[in-house]
C-alpha cells in the first residue's frame, strides 16, 4: 500500500481519466442509443434495418477489436483524430483520448439501444396509438409519450450498460490513455513486492466508482417511480 500512498496524485489523476472517459462516452452513448432505438422502433423500414444491422455488427464485436480498428486500421484509411488537441488543467485530450471515446461510444450505444428497446416494449401499445390518435407526429409520439415512459422502465438495464462502460474504459490502458488500469500496471511493474496492495487499492477505486453510478441510478429509479 505504501507505493499507492506515495504516488497518490498520480493515482487520482489516473482515476480522473477513467471518470472523464466514462462521463464523455456515457453521455454520447446515451444520445447514440436513443437515436438508434428511435430508428429501431420507427416506421421507416430502411432506418430500422440499418440500426438493427449496426447493433448486430458492433454488439457482436469484442470491444478490443473496436479499439484496434480505430487505433490501427482506421488511420490507414484516413480516419484519425489528430486534430483533437485540448488541454484542460493537467488533463490532455488528444487523439488517444478521442479514439477511446469514439470506440467506447460506438460500442456502448448498441447496449444502451437494446436496453432502451426493452423499455419501449414495456410501454403499452395503446399509449402510442392514443398519441397518434390525437394527431402527434412520430417525433411527438416518441419524445412526448413513448420515450419518457421507456426511459423510466429501462433505468436498471441502462445502468448495467453504463457500469459495464465504466469498467470497459480499462481497455484504453493499452491504447495510449494513462487511466487507472495503466497506472496500476506502472505501479505493479515498479513495485513487484507490493502487488497485492496495489491490486486491492485499484479494485477498491473501481468499486467506489461503480457504487456511485449505482447510487445515481437508484435515485433516478426512485424519483421516476410511477406514483
Amino acid at each position, binding site marked *: 500500500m505504501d507505493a499507492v500512498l506515495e504516488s497518490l496524485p498520480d493515482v487520482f489523476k489516473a482515476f480522473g481519466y477513467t471518470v472523464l472517459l466514462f462521463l464523455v462516452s456515457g453521455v454520447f452513448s446515451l444520445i447514440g442509443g436513443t437515436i438508434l432505438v428511435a430508428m429501431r422502433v420507427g416506421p421507416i423500414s430502411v432506418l430500422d434495418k440499418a440500426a438493427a444491422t449496426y447493433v448486430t455488427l458492433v454488439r457482436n464485436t469484442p470491444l478490443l477489436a473496436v479499439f484496434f480498428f480505430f487505433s490501427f486500421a482506421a488511420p490507414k484509411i484516413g480516419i484519425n483524430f489528430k486534430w483533437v488537441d485540448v488541454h484542460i488543467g493537467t488533463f490532455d485530450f488528444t487523439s488517444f483520448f478521442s479514439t477511446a471515446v469514439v470506440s467506447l461510444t460506438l460500442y456502448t450505444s448498441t447496449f444502451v439501444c437494446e436496453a432502451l428497446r426493452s423499455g419501449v416494449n414495456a410501454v403499452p401499445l395503446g399509449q402510442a396509438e392514443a398519441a397518434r390518435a390525437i394527431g402527434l407526429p412520430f417525433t411527438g409520439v416518441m419524445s412526448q409519450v413513448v420515450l419518457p415512459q421507456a426511459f423510466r422502465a429501462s433505468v436498471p438495464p441502462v445502468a448495467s450498460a453504463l457500469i459495464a462502460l465504466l469498467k470497459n474504459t480499462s481497455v484504453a490502458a493499452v491504447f495510449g490513455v494513462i487511466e487507472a488500469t495503466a497506472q496500476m500496471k*506502472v505501479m505493479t511493474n*515498479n513495485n*513487484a*513486492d507490493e502487488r497485492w496492495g496495489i491490486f486491492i487499492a485499484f479494485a477498491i477505486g473501481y468499486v467506489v466508482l461503480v457504487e456511485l453510478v449505482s447510487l445515481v441510478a437508484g435515485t433516478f429509479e426512485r424519483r421516476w417511480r410511477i406514483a
Partner: protein
Amino acid sequence: MRFIRTKAMVAGLGLALSLAACGDAGSDTESVDVEVSEDASFDDGTRMKELADAGTINVGVKYDQPGLGFNETGSDMPTGFDVDIAKILVASLGIDPEDTSKVKYIETISDNREPFLQEGKVDLVLASYSITDERRQVVGQAGPYMVTGQQLLVPEDSDAAGPEDLQGKEVCSVTGSTSLDNAKAEGMKPVGFDTYSQCVDKVLDGTVEAMTTDGTILAGYAAQNEGQLKVVGDPFSEERIGVGYSKDSPEMCQWITDTLEQANEDGKWAEAFEANLGASGVETPDFPEMDACES
C-alpha cells in the same frame, strides 16, 4: 454424391494445410554456437544439480523484442541476445539448448516475470529484466550481463535530438514499463500501448513524436525500418539487465555469475552481442561488472 464431394473437400483442405505446414521452414538465425558441457557437476541438493539430473529446464524470455528476445509466429525457438545468454547458461548444465523438448522457452511479459519465478513456471528469466531493489525483494536477480540506457526513436525527418526537444510532446512506450516513468520525469508526455510494435506503428503514422525504451530495442526497430526511423539522443537512464531466478534457490546466483564471466572470457558473450545487436550499428560494449552474490 454430396457426401463424397464433402469428403473430397475435407481431404483437399487437410492436404493443403499439411503442405502449408511443410512450407514453414526454420528461418535463418544468426545465433551463437554453444558447447554443451560434458562434465557438468554440481553439489548435491542444489537446484542446478536437480535441473542437470532432470535434463529439462524452463526459461522465460521476451517474444516481441527484435535483437533481444523475439519469436516468429509459429516458431518454438526464439532468437536474440537474451536467448543466446540463456543458451550459454542451459548448456553449462549439460542440457542441449537447441533441443526444445528439453528446454522450453516460455514467453514472459513484463508483468508476469516475478509470478512465473515464484510459482516455479520458469527456472530462469532472461527477458530484458532490469535489476531493481523492489524486484530483489521477491525474486533473485544475478548480473547484470548488459547495461543499456533509454533513448528515443524518431522519424527520419524529425529534428528532435533528445528529450529536451520533446518537452510536453507525446512519446510512446509499453504500458506499465519503467520507460514511461522515465519519459515523464524528463518532461515528456507518456503514452502507453500493449507492445513495442504498436508504438512503432504510431511513430510511423505520425500520431506520436517519438517512441522511447532501451536503446538496443530501438536499434532493432530502426534497422527494420531503415530510412524511416532513427535512434537519437544520449541514453537518459541506466538499465542493468540481469538474470532472474527463484529466491528459493539462492545458490543459483553464483553459478549464473560464474558462467557468464566464463562466457565473457572465452568470447561467447561478445559473439552473442555482435550476432544479435551488432547489425543495428551498436558497438559491442565492455562486459559489465557483475554484482556480488549474497552468500
